């Protein structure tokens, strides 16, 4: 495997790991964010998990479509920066938004569902786009695609596991919720910068296309 390909793969896997980590970290903090308005009962977790699952499924769908057209690392990086930007309103206007929902929905089940939707749907959907796009960047030949996808899920789900563990065991004990969220947003921007850097430096941004050319 050429060195350029290897660097690209490692970059994609590292970034996919980070995105898996951040998705679950935000999901866990979601429970904390909603509790002051809607309690911490099972239906609040039901709302959060539902919203994350639906957001991820649409993210997968859209990310898959976007990967069809001239995939490259720099575009991949845009998912990360977009997720960071769309997470900002969650941090800044979260309380105002939940106030608004609380005033309009008496039943905390639907209140928490709508609040979770408004707060987390967009950034989570964008983070969901990363998985199929990663597969596209990693796959060189069709008959390897299963193994590549398996390796990617392995890495990103391990990231999710670690994000869950560290957030619930340690982060909440050491930091405030917003401090953790801001750190996540900064980490996403760093991912964007890494993607841009690797894209420009190593493979001249056309790793996939060049593969196809060299084969033909």
């Amino acid at each position, binding site marked *: 495997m050429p060195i350029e390909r290897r660097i690209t793969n490692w970059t994609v896997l590292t970034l996919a790991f980070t995105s898996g980590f951040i998705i679950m970290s935000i999901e866990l903090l979601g429970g904390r964010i909603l509790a002051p308005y809607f309690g911490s*009962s099972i239906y609040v977790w039901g709302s959060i998990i539902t919203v994350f699952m639906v957001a991820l499924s649409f993210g997968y769908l859209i990310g898959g479509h976007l990967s069809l057209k001239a995939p490259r690392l720099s575009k991949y990086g845009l998912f990360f920066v977009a997720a960071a930007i769309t997470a900002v309103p969650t941090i800044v206007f979260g309380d105002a938004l939940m106030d608004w929902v609380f005033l309009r929905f008496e039943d905390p089940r639907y209140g928490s569902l709508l609040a979770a939707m408004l707060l987390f749907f967009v950034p989570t959907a964008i983070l969901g786009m990363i998985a199929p796009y990663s597969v596209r960047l990693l796959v060189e030949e069709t008959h390897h695609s299963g193994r590549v996808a398996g390796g990617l899920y392995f890495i990103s789900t391990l990231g999710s596991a670690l994000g869950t563990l560290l957030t619930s065991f340690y982060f909440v004990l050491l930091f405030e919720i917003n401090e953790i969220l801001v750190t996540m947003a900064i980490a996403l921007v760093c991912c964007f910068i890494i993607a841009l850097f690797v894209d420009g430096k190593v493979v001249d941004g056309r790793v996939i296309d060049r593969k196809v050319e060299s084969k033909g």
Partner: protein
Amino acid sequence: MKLLLVVTLLLISMASYGDGIIHREKSLYRNIVVSEKAGKRCLIFSVRREQRNQTCIDIDDPDRIVFPYVRMTFAGLLVNPEPSRGLMIGMGGGTISSVLTSVYPDLTMDLVEVDQAVVNVATEYFGFRKTDQINVHVADGRVFTRRALLRKEQYDLIILDAFTGEYIPEHLMTVEFLGDIKSLLTPDGVVIANTFLGSSLYDHESVTYSTVFGPMFSLKMPGTGNRVIVASRMGLPDNKTLMANAMMLKPAFERYNIDLRKYVPNMNRDPDWNTDKRPLTDQYSPANLLRGR
């Protein structure tokens, strides 16, 4: 072979009901156990680790209040001896509200309990009765409080007792929540909170309450594992007033075998906690993790 089976089944049933357990229930939130032993019937929210009896009644003498912290709760009346509207978050066996509403015939109370199963068990096994004076709301304490604030409700007696031995609802132990509770208090209202002893949570919890209420009473009685916080919006009355109120309330509490006078010397005004600890907020509320430290 048949004999073996019978013996095994017998052993299993003895094991599960051996400690005089008369009822077991898994609710959405916890395991609820009702036990009956030595004339006492107890509501237990957890049977692991130290057996914490949440509420006990004396079967032959239901007026006698077995559990010390329940009696200590009434020390809040030394600050406001004539409450007319009460709010209680976390109902336990319902004993406290039953006693209060019979001592004060004009008192009405909102009882907020997140777990319907607790309401059922209190009714079925602890003689809890809904009366004209008691409204039960099955809701989260924080959600109820927020709605009550929107309705501009006011209470002159608020009791916070939503904490079982096993798990603390963390969103009910923050500066923001207590700020809402304070806004629900009338100017002469009193808030009473049953809290824990003996972990670094004690410091954090104390700092959290004093951040919101300023000076407060911290009541500890020898031989109990609980501390009861008593605070108000107006600041703290002097000991003479406390004693006068205790004397006034003496006849009404005699049948419950409670003498509020003995609490007066133990109503501590000075912080005995580490005041440098961080208050718990909606942003930082790892109460359950701090408990283990």
